[in-house]
């Protein structure tokens, strides 16, 4: 009898577990449902999502949107709510995903066939995702007038084979030279005369170097070098792989000169042999561990937030070019855009949402810029009263850096790792530059052959 009771209990537990598992599955598989559901953990951001009765709710088409807020959740919720009110047939549901988890979570959702209808995509990921059929064209959702509100170089970044696949939300330059006026004065340099050539950069670093301070902080390890070098390559008009991805193009005098710059800075210990912080972090300059620092556009906000006491001492200028050339790229432009998932069942509705949010009333994106001090992407937004433009350092990005910035490249990341390895071999292993470049060339050609990359550039 006791035995039977035991078996019965085990059965009850098993059934409970199975039922719980099944109900959990339902919640996960609803993402692509065409009707509004009630068991999603996402925020609906809608005033009428639960008030107008069952019939109206059933007629609505749900558009799922994964966002990556930076302490501006309210902007998303307010605008999604307004959109839902103005579009009775559409219900946008926004879910907030942390930035560092976005790529992994999206990949898992794509593999499971439950990717959201509206996705945030980085500029550099657009060509490959188009080649793999992951994005739907936005041409039918955005008018020519709305496209023309973008700068030509930005429009090019969202265009693949003549079609536009994403609308920009924000844009950031990957690199600028940051320095402190007080350090310049202390070292006898004129703060109004920043270095303009690579030789001047080295010379200034020598002058700024003290017993407790390095002349400059720059990316120096295999983690940061691959993705922070793109702007330097664009500045020289070179790429480690040929445009049709058929062969390596790294063993050139331009690359030799570029690695030579790192070699000099390393050998003279003008930069730290061990990174003083991650590339994104302005701490070395802010705390006086370095006299100058190469950092991205985001560092201005970071300094204002974390080191307000020295914010007034900071000056931002374009990264020096080899011989002081002007009007050339000194950085790449990255950042987020919104695009429609190719498997979305509501492409039209998703397109309407993107058009309304990013390309409609300029005040919406002006609020976005004011909330988190991001540079405006659209010309019409830049003409509004923006807090971002009050800081002269921010102006530098808009006038001197972003107009010339190129897109981050979209070729295989291992190619960029091969470049970073060449730099590290020269700086850490004291291998000659020509030998490091010859080896990198062989490595890249091997990657091209093994991964069959030749002729696969989506923009060729």
């Amino acid at each position, binding site marked *: 009898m006791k035995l039977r009771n035991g078996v019965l209990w085990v059965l009850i537990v098993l059934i409970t577990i199975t039922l719980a598992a099944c109900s959990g599955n339902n919640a996960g598989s609803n993402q692509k449902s065409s009707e509004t559901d009630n068991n999603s953990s996402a925020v609906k951001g809608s005033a009428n999502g639960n008030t107008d009765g069952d019939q109206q709710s059933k007629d609505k088409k749900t558009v799922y949107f994964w966002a990556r807020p930076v302490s501006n959740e309210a902007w998303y919720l307010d605008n999604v709510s307004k959109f839902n009110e103005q579009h009775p047939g559409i219900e946008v549901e926004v879910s907030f995903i942390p930035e560092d988890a976005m790529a992994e979570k999206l990949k898992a959702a794509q593999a499971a066939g439950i990717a959201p209808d509206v996705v945030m995509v980085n500029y550099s990921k657009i060509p490959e995702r188009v080649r793999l059929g992951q994005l739907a064209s936005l041409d039918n959702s955005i008018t020519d007038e709305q496209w023309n509100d973008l700068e030509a170089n930005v429009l090019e970044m969202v265009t693949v084979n003549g079609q536009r696949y994403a609308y920009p939300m924000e844009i950031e330059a990957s690199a600028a030279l940051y320095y402190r006026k007080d350090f310049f004065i202390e070292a006898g340099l004129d703060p109004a005369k920043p270095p303009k050539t690579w030789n001047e950069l080295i010379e200034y670093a020598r002058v700024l170097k003290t017993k407790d301070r390095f002349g400059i902080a720059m990316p120096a390890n295999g983690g940061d070098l691959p993705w922070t070098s793109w702007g330097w390559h664009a500045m020289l008009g070179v790429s480690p792989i040929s445009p049709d991805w058929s062969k390596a193009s790294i063993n050139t005098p331009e690359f030799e000169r570029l690695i030579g710059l790192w070699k000099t800075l390393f050998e003279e210990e003008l930069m730290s042999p*061990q990174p003083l912080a991650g590339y994104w972090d302005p701490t070395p300059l802010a705390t006086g561990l370095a006299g100058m620092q190469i950092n991205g556009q985001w560092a201005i906000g970071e300094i204002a937030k974390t080191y307000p006491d020295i914010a007034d001492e900071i000056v931002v200028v374009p990264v020096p070019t080899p011989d002081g050339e002007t009007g050339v790229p000194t950085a790449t432009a990255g950042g987020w855009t919104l695009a429609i998932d190719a498997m979305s069942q509501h492409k039209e509705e998703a397109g309407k949402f993107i058009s309304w949010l990013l390309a409609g009333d300029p005040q919406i994106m002006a609020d976005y810029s004011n909330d988190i001090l991001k540079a405006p992407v659209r010309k019409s937004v830049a003409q509004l009263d923006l807090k971002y433009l009050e800081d002269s350092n921010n102006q530098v990005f808009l006038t001197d850096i972003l107009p010339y910035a190129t897109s981050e490249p979209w070729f295989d990341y291992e190619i960029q790792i091969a470049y970073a390895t060449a730099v590290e071999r020269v700086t850490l292993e004291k291998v000659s530059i020509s030998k490091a470049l010859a080896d990198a060339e062989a490595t890249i050609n091997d990657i091209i052959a093994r991964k069959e990359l030749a002729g696969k550039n989506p923009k060729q």
Partner: protein
Amino acid sequence: MFAIKNRKKFWDGMTGLLMIAPMTLLLSVFAITPLVSAIKVSFENWSFYQPPEFVGFHNYYLVLTDNRFFKSIVVGIKYAITVVTCGFVVAFFFSHVLKHLSTRISSFVKTSIYIPTIISGIIVSMIFMFIFQYPAGLLNTVVKSFGSSPIPWLANPQYALTSISISGIWMGFGFTSLLMLAGLNDIPKSYYEAASLDGAGFLKQMWHITIPSMRNTFVFIVITGFSGALQVFDLPFLMTQGGPLDRTLTPILFIYQHFKNDVTLGYTLAASVVVFIVLGTISAAIFKVIKSEKFVD
């Protein structure tokens, strides 16, 4: 009578089956199905939105001809050998010290040394990044006090893996010590008393009583330590990002880099399956070398 016995046997069997059913169900859903699915996808080029293309062993060919993959396996093995061996020796001797401490002091020390185990790898990485900071970290302050130049511990190809291994040893030391202590306390005192009467000294007692009696504890520590160390991710990810020159690129970090950057999943999964086989082979080899036996009193 016979029928009652048979019925009892039947219900015994049923109870056993039902008892293991929940775990079998959970293992099937969360371990076996994903593993089978991963093996299947490792033979395909699948980018989610286009039909998967069967490529046979091509992904395995790419993995097995990739120098970086082999380097990462070597780095993983070097790290595991360093962390397990050093951790093992230090914990073995420390557990002897613990055993002979008074109860109150022993409780305090046990709690203290266990703290690193419950701290996440992220916090451990942050702590050791402060210690290894260049040029003014804790360790370099000591180095400079002896009149030497500071050393870029995490950026020098010679020292980077050792530096990360030290953090790994620190993190696992408390857990290993407590396991060793439990194993030590399990050995009957009468063995040592008898050995003392026969004139055996400390070393002889250790060689003939302590070490053979703790064989199963050793097997557990070496197997779990080795497979855990081979799968280390957070320490190199945060402290060195796999550099300098891939000297700290562990197999899981290598797989993560491909998962993050590759547009198809095939290569990543093929590398995962190969690492799974390597881990299984190493664990089986350790089992074979240190034969686990039932301890007979």
